[in-house]
């Protein structure tokens, strides 16, 4: 009985906060646009009884999904999102791994402080932090002022409103999600393994590639998913830092909803995004499970 309650709580949670909203969105994606409130038909009319439900179901169709395939904007946006998510995940890994490594090798009494510093940015609003990047990256921004002052460039660089700004923003925002899982793997790495590797003829560098890195791989994989998954649907960063050429599905989604007020197509976009995300999420779960098993 108590077991059942323990299981019931997360399931209810999922049901209420994920499955039900998803079904609603899914239902909207099967509807048609209408100049009404809410802006789609059909509406479920329960006062008609069973025939009302049947009428309602009969009017639902996959039109919007078919529409997504006909307009190249959508699949280009999906592809471009995948590319931006993949590139920024890789960049985050490049920046995050050395930081995690340095933290794991830092003196024991320093580590809590370093961890704290990694988490500290979460204490200010995400929006404010992205806005402040606008102040840094703009043509009049601090970065360009510094570069001009140092004489590295003669005219301000156009960074803001390009994909570069998006990458910078994503790497900055999601860095902790990369560092923390890698750090936790490296932290529990047994130093004797590296000594054993050296004893058996490895140089320091090859010991890293043959022992340290493979053993931190579960953390790397976890970190990559934790960055990749939310980045794929990212909206705030590309719309604030990216330019008109930055094509991301999150932006398209927003425009469909709020500019075009085409809720059914927007919902279809969202449903497809979710389906795309399910693959990495399942892989991520598999990775976590494997890791848990290996540790047991």
């Amino acid at each position, binding site marked *: 009985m108590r077991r059942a309650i323990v299981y019931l709580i997360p399931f209810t949670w999922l049901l209420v906060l994920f499955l039900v909203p998803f079904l609603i969105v899914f239902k909207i994606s099967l509807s048609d646009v209408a100049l009404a409130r809410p802006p789609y038909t059909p509406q479920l009319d329960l006062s008609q009884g069973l025939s009302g439900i049947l009428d309602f179901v009969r009017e639902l169709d996959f039109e919007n999904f078919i529409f997504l395939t006909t307009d190249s904007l959508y699949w280009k946006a999906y592809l471009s999102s995948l590319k931006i998510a993949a590139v920024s995940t890789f960049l985050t890994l490049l920046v995050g791994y050395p930081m995690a490594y340095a933290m794991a090798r830092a003196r024991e009494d320093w580590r809590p402080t370093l961890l704290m510093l990694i988490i500290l940015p979460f204490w200010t609003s995400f929006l404010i932090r992205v806005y402040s990047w606008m102040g840094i990256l703009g043509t009049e921004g601090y970065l360009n002022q510094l570069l001009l002052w140092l004489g590295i460039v003669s005219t301000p660089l156009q960074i803001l409103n390009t994909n570069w700004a998006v990458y910078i923003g994503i790497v900055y925002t999601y860095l902790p999600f990369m560092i923390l899982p890698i750090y936790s793997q490296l932290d529990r790495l047994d130093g004797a393994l590296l000594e054993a590797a050296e004893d*058996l003829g490895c140089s320091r560098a090859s010991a890293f590639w043959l022992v340290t890195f493979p053993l931190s791989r579960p953390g790397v994989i976890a970190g990559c998913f934790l960055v990749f998954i939310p980045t794929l649907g990212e909206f705030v960063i590309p719309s604030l830092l990216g330019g008109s050429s930055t094509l991301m599905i999150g932006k398209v989604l927003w425009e469909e909803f709020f500019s075009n007020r085409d809720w059914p197509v927007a919902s279809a976009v969202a449903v497809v995004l979710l389906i795309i995300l399910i693959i990495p999420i399942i892989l991520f779960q598999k990775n976590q499970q494997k890791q848990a098993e290996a540790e047991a």
Partner: protein
Amino acid sequence: MIRFENVTKRFGSFVAIDNLSLDIYEREFFALLGPSGCGKTTMMRMLAGFENPSEGNIELDGADIVDVPPNKRAVNMMFQSYALFPHLSVHDNIAFGLKREGMAKDKISARVAEMLRLTRLEKFASRKPHQISGGQRQRVALARSLAKAPKLLLLDEPLGALDKKLREETQFELMDIQEKTGTTFVIVTHDQEEAMTVASRVAVMDAGVLKQVATPSQIYENPNSRYVADFIGDVTILEGRARKEGNRYELAWADGQPPIVAQSALEIGPGDTCYYAIRPEKVEIHHDKPEDDNVLQGKVIDIGYLGNISTYHVQLANGQTIRAQNFNTERSTQQAFTWDDTVWVNWTDRCGILLAN
């Protein structure tokens, strides 16, 4: 083959190894024995190259190795924690060192197969370390450190994690392997029985200093100090003053007790304080007073029954306890001696050891 020359190792102001000199010869099975924290692991780590001596030299085959990094030394170490690579199979763990040498593929697999056979791990070659038992893991660690055929193999408490039975089995396996491969083994242990069983020579350490380096039987029968006598095996130590009587010493050790006579080559000045160590298995226990040297009367206050032997704690009139051991050759639940029996203990003048310090 290995020579420690006045080696001192400090950690900060703490002296872990204190001006130590030692020679270890080729094909030797050498054991370092000592209490926890005496510097055994530090010695090994200096041999493997993970630690540099603060002072002094370490030579391997006549060449100074202090500046040679661990990956360039013909020395392999079997770690106290095994340190197996968890992401690699048993086979790949053993092949690890060989691959680093750039050995040809077929040679590697031949060598690994040989190691697997030697350690009887053939069946587990494709398993990961977490899929095999503790004893098997330990054998993998051994195979891995042997695979490169090092001149010198260091074993840091290799059997610490094993149960008694497996431990004894593995000890003999180790000796067997050492004989077959002709590698010089240096083993660290704080189990004196283990050291005595496997090693051809034993060094007893205390606080960074070598107390005695000798064969197991010499260490046991001729310890050079109270510390060694007490550390190895069971012993009763008496303190007194010795007087030379012909070729023997007479030790006056307690009021109201007859002096103890002992043969000794030691030169002890009259009136100097010295010590006398007697091992329980050399002490006989009787109901009636025997005619011999070193006969003392006392009362049985404690009996330790171990199955094959019994240890009797006999308390003398002055409060000193002497331990005597008897083999239980008869199969009977009735002990020959029991609590509060008044008994006589005795031993000959050659059984005990006179020690100057």
